[in-house]
């Protein structure tokens, strides 16, 4: 595989030279351009700008982004920066960039799970000044009172059109300020065996890992669908810290009042209908379906629902999720949530995320024991029921026939693989039916040539991004960040490095999240001249070697 990427990279380099010579693809500028033909910048120079500590994933952790990082670093050097490229494994990278906040620039992704289709996470969690702390999601340390106001306002707007307007404005501000370079929504392809399964349903952000695919996929022969995924499930306990692969299966076993539909919007699930919203968005009333049972045959009652929300409130891990709820009361088949203040994403982000628990099983568990509790059958009310599990070998599920949305396959098996290429081998050998991970482009070509196999294409709302540490000089200067953004080859990343998988983005909200995406934000595409101009206008200058300096009066 590394040979494939290597040759593409060489191609990119050549394309870069061609671009500078005035042909088609501009990438890296040309070698002899030291700023002399560009803007002059400051006449009198101060100190040279400090070296950029640029943290990127290793090729093993993410080969696509590793390559992008290397080319970006070359471009930054091209416009006069010195770059110290630091390649880290995933855990160490997250620790350095998100927890220690010890970096100048950091190339990481932000995943687009369905609950993040509501713009709350991308607008407030990632950019509000309250989340700049250790481990917080505002890794750049972006603090802008004007922006904060909008981010807080959108939360309180139950009217979707008004909220959309606010979210639009917020996107404009961060596009202008560039606390991060928003690079690309990394859509992809998940391979499956078209000769063995049908009705695959790749959905936004998740491809074949989506809930909707798991209940839709149908075996052509026999009664079992087997999927492969390149990591083990850590836990099926919804009260434990969950990673994405865990959540993909917890939600098959447990229902929520609402589920995020394939269109990205919450739809009634265990709820009979849309919620009734009153008191300017401070009261939500939900009626539950009366035809649901848990896997052990007990009815799902309104008491179970009320118990569930109390359980979350007591949970050390998840109390934050429901802290907006002040009071709950029930009557008949209805449950009413009184909120502390209006919270527009309540349906998607709370009612759509809280899993319903059977009180007769979890009723006696102490709050501090919730995360360690082992329900050996993982009894929920979801469309699949637990059959058996050996973490390192396989997870076996069976369709829950009494569910109102019975899955199309009688049995569902999940195999944890060693890595993606090993799993592609399993797919080719007929041991698995689909794969919830994206193979390398060369492997994808092989899959597309195979008559028995096919690849399901999906788009993403999460993205790759470079965060700039605004706690430090010179990254607190918007001109520097904008110049760095102009040097990131976004289109080339999607077209060449990712072989066309995904879409370029300039906003924190993906274009595939149609309702919330603002298509008119400022665009930053590869343009080293524009980068130099930003720097010159802000008073920076270049020495005779083309190195970037502060202006003398800066």
């Amino acid at each position, binding site marked *: 595989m590394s040979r494939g990427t290597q040759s593409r990279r060489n191609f990119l380099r050549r394309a870069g030279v061609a671009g500078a010579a005035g042909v088609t693809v501009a990438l890296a500028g040309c070698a002899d351009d030291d700023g002399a033909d560009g803007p002059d910048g400051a006449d009198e120079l101060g100190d040279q700008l400090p070296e950029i500590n640029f943290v990127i994933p290793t090729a093993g952790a993410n080969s696509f982004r590793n390559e992008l990082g290397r080319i970006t670093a070359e471009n930054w050097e091209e416009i006069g920066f010195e770059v110290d490229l630091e390649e*880290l*494994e*995933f*855990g*160490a990278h*997250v*620790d*350095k960039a*998100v*927890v220690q906040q010890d970096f100048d620039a950091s190339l*990481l*992704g*932000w*995943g687009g*799970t369905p609950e993040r289709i509501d713009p709350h996470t991308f607008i407030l969690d990632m950019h509000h000044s309250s*989340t700049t*702390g*250790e*481990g*917080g*999601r505002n890794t750049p340390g972006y603090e802008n009172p004007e922006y904060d106001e909008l981010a807080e306002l959108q939360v309180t707007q139950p009217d979707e059109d008004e909220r959309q307007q606010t979210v639009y404005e917020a996107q404009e501000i961060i596009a202008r300020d560039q606390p991060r370079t928003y690079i690309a929504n990394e859509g992809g392809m998940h391979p499956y065996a078209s000769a063995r399964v049908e009705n695959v349903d790749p959905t936004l952000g998740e491809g074949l890992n989506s809930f909707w695919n798991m209940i839709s996929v149908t075996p052509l022969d026999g009664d*079992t669908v*087997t999927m492969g995924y390149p990591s*083990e499930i*850590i*836990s099926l306990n919804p009260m*434990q*810290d*969950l*990673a*994405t692969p865990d*959540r993909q299966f917890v939600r098959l076993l447990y229902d929520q009042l609402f589920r995020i539909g394939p269109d990205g919007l919450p739809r009634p699930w265990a709820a009979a209908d849309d919620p009734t919203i009153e008191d300017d968005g401070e009261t939500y009333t939900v009626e539950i379906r009366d035809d649901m049972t848990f896997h052990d045959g007990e009815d799902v009652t309104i008491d179970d629902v009320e118990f569930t929300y109390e359980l979350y409130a007591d949970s*050390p*891990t998840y109390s*934050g999720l429901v802290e907006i709820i002040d009071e709950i009361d029930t009557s008949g088949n209805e449950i009413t949530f009184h909120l502390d203040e209006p919270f527009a994403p309540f349906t998607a982000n709370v009612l759509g995320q809280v899993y319903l628990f059977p009180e007769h099983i979890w009723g006696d568990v102490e709050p501090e024991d919730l*995360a*360690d509790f082992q329900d050996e059958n993982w009894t929920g009310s979801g469309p699949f029921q637990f059959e*058996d*599990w*050996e*973490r*390192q*070998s*396989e997870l*076996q599920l069976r369709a829950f026939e009494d569910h109102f949305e019975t899955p199309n396959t009688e*049995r569902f*098996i999940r*195999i944890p*693989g*060693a*890595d993606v290429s*090993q*799993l592609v*081998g*399993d797919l*080719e*050998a007929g*041991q698995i039916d689909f794969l919830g991970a994206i193979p390398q482009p060369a492997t994808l070509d092989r899959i597309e040539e195979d008559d028995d196999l096919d690849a399901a294409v999906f788009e993403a709302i999460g993205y790759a991004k470079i965060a700039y540490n605004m706690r430090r000089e010179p990254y607190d200067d918007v001109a520097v960040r904008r110049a760095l953004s102009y040097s990131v080859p976004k289109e080339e990343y999607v077209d060449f490095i990712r072989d066309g998988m995904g879409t370029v983005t300039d906003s924190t909200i993906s274009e595939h999240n149609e309702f919330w995406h603002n298509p008119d934000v400022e665009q930053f595409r590869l343009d080293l001249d524009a980068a130099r101009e930003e720097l010159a206008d802000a008073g920076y200058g270049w020495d005779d070697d083309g190195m970037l300096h502060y202006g003398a009066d800066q």
Partner: protein
Amino acid sequence: MGLREFVIRRLVQLVFTFWAFFTILFVLFRMVPGDPTSMFLLDGMTAEQREQRIAELGLDQPLHIQYINYIEQLLTGDFGQSFIYREPVIDIIVVRFMNTIVLMGTALVIAYLIGVTFGALMGWWRGSRFERGGIVVTLVARSSPEFWVGIVLLSVFVFWLGWFPSSGMRATGGDLGGGFVQRYGSLDFLRHLFLPALTGAIVYLATPTLLMRSTMLDVLKADFIEIKKAEGLPERTVLYKHAARNSVLPLVTVMAIATGAAMGGSVVIETVFNWPGMGREMVRSVNNNDYPVAMAAFFLMGSVVIIMNFVADLAYVYLDPRVEYE
């Protein structure tokens, strides 16, 4: 020095070795950047949840306190709980360790049976076409990377001939769990074991073959072989009973060390054939900063190496009266 004194002294050394090994492991793992929450942070864990989890795991304590707590825990024979899985470390390790023993044990037995036999014959027929061909084959096996051998075997036996499954330890969809016999005793398991074990055997084959051959050459020069030949003993008797037996000695040490190393599993073989063994678990636990599992896994592997060395020392003395305890 007598046997008893020798054993006691070695045991004391053993305890010290274990302690040093442990302490180094402990410090090394804590120095690796990241913590057990790193893998959840981008998946939705908030800063508050993270802080709370770190405190729960005692990772906010000073290092020496963590060290003392850990040693205390170990002295009660408890490896603790996995930081990520939240299950007893021992439950996680034992299954994978067994998987590794079965795979690597099979590979080693095949490698050493074939290796010793071939090596002996190569030494015996010094200068023959058999020896020259054998050396070429052995060197090719020795210089082939594990993953390449695995992929070649996969291409031939799985993708071309379709005789064996491509990965895993058993056919999917059957009963999970079960005892030793149910797990490792079935024909289905043997079908899954064949290719990874063969890969391991090919990779391990070279050492015993070459070592056996060269010691054979030394032994064959010795006077007693000439005498045995002069006594008119059949060639086969001289080969097996006298030459080969006397050549096996250095192999004992090598085998002991190889066994120790093999028990750590082979990340490469386990990855190519998706074998749920120790090697991959070690990689996972290190990557996820799951210290208790990583410590236990390295400890287990190190222990096998240390103990096998000890056993080799003892076995040496037993096998060769010329070696003395000192």
